[in-house]
């Protein structure tokens, strides 16, 4: 790898190795290894979870990967923010830029050095986690618990979700009915009223009152529809309850095509928590559309069933092995770190270490917040009193919404793929998703961010007397 390379690559490799050496010799790597080692070894020993093996492994994956990712993200951001700024401050950069090295090569070398460190540490965490889970599973004496672990976590499944419903017509009909009955509050704007009704219609989809039936339609991809017999399918539903003392619920699930609901199964249980129902292979016809319905028992035998609006109902199709799933998740986590490193290195070409760290952290927080803010409903209107015409306020709020929407769109490749929870509950993390994330977070975004950093580095005066910006 390191031999017979072009001078351009030789320079990048030299700077990457230097960056890595700096991490090793400053004992940063040793410190990280100790902390991560503590996380990976001590955490599984202390986790109890819900008392089951699946629960323990689930928690082990979430906590180990979550904490490792958080720690690595902080260290990556800090190390990247120090990478160039520190060298400018200590003047070593002067001896580098006078050599035949282009600014982008310096940027790329620093970035790759940090990626090498992250890759090594992530690999260690994943290998240790994999070994830890194997150790935990082998120590379990109950074969039932081991089978459950294998079926629910160690054999990952692809998740199919119901087709989203189009609520426009229903919302329009309800709005018309409210107007006819003169039940519309004049202080509420038309847009807000419609939005509220639409949200109500969407939420009702996940509620099945006693004695009623609700249906959900699933689109089955060709690849799964064709080899349905071989695939093992599971219906997973998550019930929620707002009351502490709810009665158990019971009802009948049916799964099949619109015309032939082939597979029936009565189910009863608690009104909250995640429930799984295995669908026997070959019990349902091969088709690209499946209809799942739930007929809730009458009020004497059941209560209202409420499904989680996010993960209320899913069909799981067994797809691959845990190791592969873990590897794909690892690639996605690595890509996220790569983007953070790119952000930090570019910030370090512009600012001193504290300012660069603050800047890159602020950008990260803004992106995180923008992804948790829902602006689809438009500006918030006052709930009471007549609608007031405030053109400036409205314009500013609209502009703010557009900015948030833009940032959300821009950062969506970073935040849409959150693989840790999926690995923990055995949900398939497709290789295609890992590849797409890699394209955005290792190639496209770092290229743009790196270009900006390289331009700054090229234009910047690196020997100003007593200045570190």
């Amino acid at each position: 790898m390191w031999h017979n390379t072009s001078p351009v690559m030789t320079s990048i490799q030299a700077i990457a190795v230097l960056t890595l050496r700096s991490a090793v010799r400053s004992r940063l790597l040793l410190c990280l290894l100790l902390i991560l080692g503590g996380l990976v070894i001590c955490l599984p020993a202390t986790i109890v979870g819900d008392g089951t093996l699946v629960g323990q492994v689930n928690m082990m994956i979430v906590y180990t990967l979550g904490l490792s990712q958080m720690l690595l993200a902080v260290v990556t951001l800090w190390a990247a923010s120090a990478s160039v700024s520190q060298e400018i401050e200590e003047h070593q950069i002067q001896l580098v830029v006078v050599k035949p090295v282009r600014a982008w090569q310096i940027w790329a070398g620093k970035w790759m050095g940090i990626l090498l460190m992250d890759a090594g540490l992530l690999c260690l965490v994943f290998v240790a986690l994999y070994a830890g889970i194997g150790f935990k599973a082998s120590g379990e004496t109950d074969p039932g618990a081991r089978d459950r672990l294998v079926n629910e976590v160690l054999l990952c499944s692809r998740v199919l979700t119901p087709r989203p419903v189009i609520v426009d017509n229903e919302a329009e009909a309800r709005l018309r009915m409210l107007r006819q009955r003169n039940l519309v509050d004049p202080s509420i704007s038309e847009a807000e009223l419609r939005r509220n009704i639409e949200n109500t219609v969407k939420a009702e989809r996940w509620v099945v009152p006693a004695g009623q039936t609700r249906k959900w339609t699933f689109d089955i991809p060709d690849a799964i529809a064709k080899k349905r017999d071989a695939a093992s399918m599971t219906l997973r539903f998550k019930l929620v309850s707002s009351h502490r003392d709810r009665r158990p619920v019971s009802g009948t699930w049916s799964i099949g095509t619109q015309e032939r609901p082939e597979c029936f199964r009565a189910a009863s249980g608690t009104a909250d928590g995640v429930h799984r129902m295995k669908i026997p292979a070959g019990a349902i016809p091969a088709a690209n559309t499946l209809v799942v319905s739930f007929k809730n028992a009458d009020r004497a035998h059941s209560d209202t069933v409420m499904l989680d609006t996010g993960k209320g109902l899913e069909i799981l199709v067994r797809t691959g092995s845990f190791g592969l799933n873990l590897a794909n998740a690892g690639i996605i986590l690595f890509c996220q770190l790569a983007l953070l490193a790119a952000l930090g290195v570019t910030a370090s070409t512009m600012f001193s270490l504290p300012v660069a760290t603050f800047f890159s952290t602020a950008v990260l927080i803004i992106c995180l917040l923008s992804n948790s803010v829902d602006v689809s409903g438009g500006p918030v209107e006052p709930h009471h009193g007549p609608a007031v015409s405030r053109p400036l306020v409205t314009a500013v709020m609209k502009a703010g919404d557009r900015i948030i929407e833009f940032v959300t769109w821009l950062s969506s490749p970073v935040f849409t793929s959150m693989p840790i929870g999926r690995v923990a509950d055995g949900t398939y993390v497709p290789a295609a998703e890992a590849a797409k994330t890699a394209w955005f977070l290792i190639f496209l975004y770092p290229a743009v961010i790196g270009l900006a950093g390289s331009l700054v580095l090229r234009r910047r005066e690196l020997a100003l007397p007593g200045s570190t910006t």
Partner: protein
Amino acid sequence: MTETSNHPAVEILNLRKVFRDFWQRPTVTALNGITMDVKEGEVFGLLGPNGSGKSTTIKILLGLLHPSSGTVKILGREPTDVAAKKEIGYLPEESYLYQYLTPAETLDFYARLFGIDRHTRGERSKQLLEMVGLSHAAHRPVGGFSKGMSRRIGIAQALINDPRLVFLDEPTPGLDPIGCRQVKDLIRTLAGRGKTIVLSSHLLADVEDVCDRIAILYNGEIRAHGRVRELLETSEHLSLTIPVLPPDRLAAVLKSLRALLGSEPEVGRPSMNLEQFFLKVVEEAHQRTPEPSGTGRTEGVAQYLSSHD
């Protein structure tokens, strides 16, 4: 005196540099319209007191600072041109080295930035470390070195690419007299091979020993510029050196001179300068003692730097 060509290795035309604060208000005028050139194969000295603009000029020539106005060219190219940088060696006023690297790693790192192949890198690093007397410390981190030892590594890294044009910004401070002498020998050797050297210093004896031409900067302007000998020669006096004579014969010679000149000639004994005396004492001491803990015995100039192409 070294052979120089008429091609300028460095061209500076009306160079002006004004440092500005965060709000872009001018704070200091470091260079105020200097114009000069350095011919290929020449050893050129930039002299001046602290803050006169020597280092600023060198940093602009290296692309580390941008001129406020005026133009600079090195080896016929822009300072930021990568092709020009391949031919340049630079020793800054402080040896800005990575404290966690060893001398061998330091030289290897900079050699890789030049795209030098592994074999050549190894050979040159070895020769340079021998040249600067640090072979025995090749695998100790630079962070533990004295200022003089760091300076030696700085000199070595500036020569790793066998450069055509070398910028030495205050090369001798921190070096012991042997090191100073060696740097001067090195400069002469490089100049003998047709390399161009731009030397900035306020140690006048160093400059006088090695430079062909000098420019004296003061307050960002060139106050004197030309060949060293021409600038230093005085037309009123002539010195004559003769062997030591018995008193009667000396009196006769002086009497004759007095009659010829019509004035009293100055009589004195020529002496070694302190540098020559120091080198003589250390050389004698070196014959009797083993390798010291600091800088070891140096091995002249690296072979690849002294051999003609």
